[in-house]
């Protein structure tokens, strides 16, 4: 990986901040429908980073956002399940993005990634409290993950398509 230019560091900092803001704003909302279900709008920025810059930069934005989200959200203990879920789902996303480039849509990859995220998080919860009974929430969480992934995927595709190429060029 090449050394980051000051401009790139600044842009990655802005993307991480936006991601963190989205995460913190979402955590202020009361829980709806299914416990633990969220739209995951913070993932929009790590997804855009991956497409605009590459896999290492995407991981960087995601990891810093998860760590700072736990600190600012006042829930350090959440790292035990949010970090593995975030990293594993993003790894699958990044691998498929690189491997199947141009063959699968960003939209579908976001759906798969969100579903994996919720599945891993639920499994981590089961491990922490040593019971499988929580798996009764799996169907609802997988469905919510698919919907959340579709929202993030649609937003990411729309942003990339409708922001003019000249504006994207300014990132480099």
């Amino acid at each position, binding site marked *: 990986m090449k050394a980051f230019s000051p401009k790139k560091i600044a842009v990655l900092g802005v993307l991480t901040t936006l991601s963190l803001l989205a995460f913190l704003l979402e*955590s202020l909302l*009361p*829980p*709806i*429908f*299914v*416990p*633990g279900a969220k739209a995951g709008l913070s993932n929009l920025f790590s997804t855009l980073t991956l*497409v*605009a*810059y*590459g896999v290492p930069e995407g991981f960087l934005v995601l990891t810093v956002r998860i760590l700072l989200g736990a600190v600012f*959200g*006042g*829930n350090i*203990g*959440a790292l035990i*399940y949010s970090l593995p879920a975030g990293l594993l789902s993003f790894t699958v996303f990044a691998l*498929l993005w690189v491997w*199947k*480039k*141009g*063959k*699968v*849509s*960003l*939209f*579908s*990859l976001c*759906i*798969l990634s969100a*579903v994996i995220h919720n*599945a891993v998080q639920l499994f981590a*919860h*089961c*491990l*922490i*409290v*040593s*019971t*499988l*009974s*929580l*798996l*009764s*929430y*799996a*169907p609802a969480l*997988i*469905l919510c993950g*698919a919907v959340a992934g579709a929202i993030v995927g649609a937003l990411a*595709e729309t942003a*990339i*398509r409708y922001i003019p*190429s000249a504006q*994207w*060029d300014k990132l*480099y």
Partner: protein
Amino acid sequence: MSRRDIDLVKGSPRFRLSDLWIYAVVLCLLLVSFAGLWLLSPNATQATGIEITFCGKRAATLEWTGRFTEYPSERISFAVESTAESAVIRITVEVDGTVGHNELQVDLSAHTVAMESADCTGRDCTLMKIGNGSDSILCLPHRLVVSLLQGENWIPDGVIL
């Protein structure tokens, strides 16, 4: 490489045939989860009450008859108000030096349980119920699990050690 990726997304159709296998994987996961739900769920009608565990250890049980049993456990205490048909269990826990509160509403005749209130982060547990398909309530920040109490002859489908 990434500037090309932007152009790739801009120039490609929103749906590609290869997306179908991704949707198929998601659908399979969903079907497996429904099958797992059907196979793993303990039968609520066989349950004799509820069990409250704290940090993985049984802390209390409440039978549908209204009998409440508290097990010796540090850092958790209970206050119970019950009538013939319902019970309210107020739980106080101490996790990592912080005191937390949860309130369970139990309908003893309908065999349903709801987390009425909690002061944990996120308050996701307040959306959880026992009954109508779901069989456990989890409050992860407070390390609490409320699950169905099975009879003597019940064999668990699985426990993660």
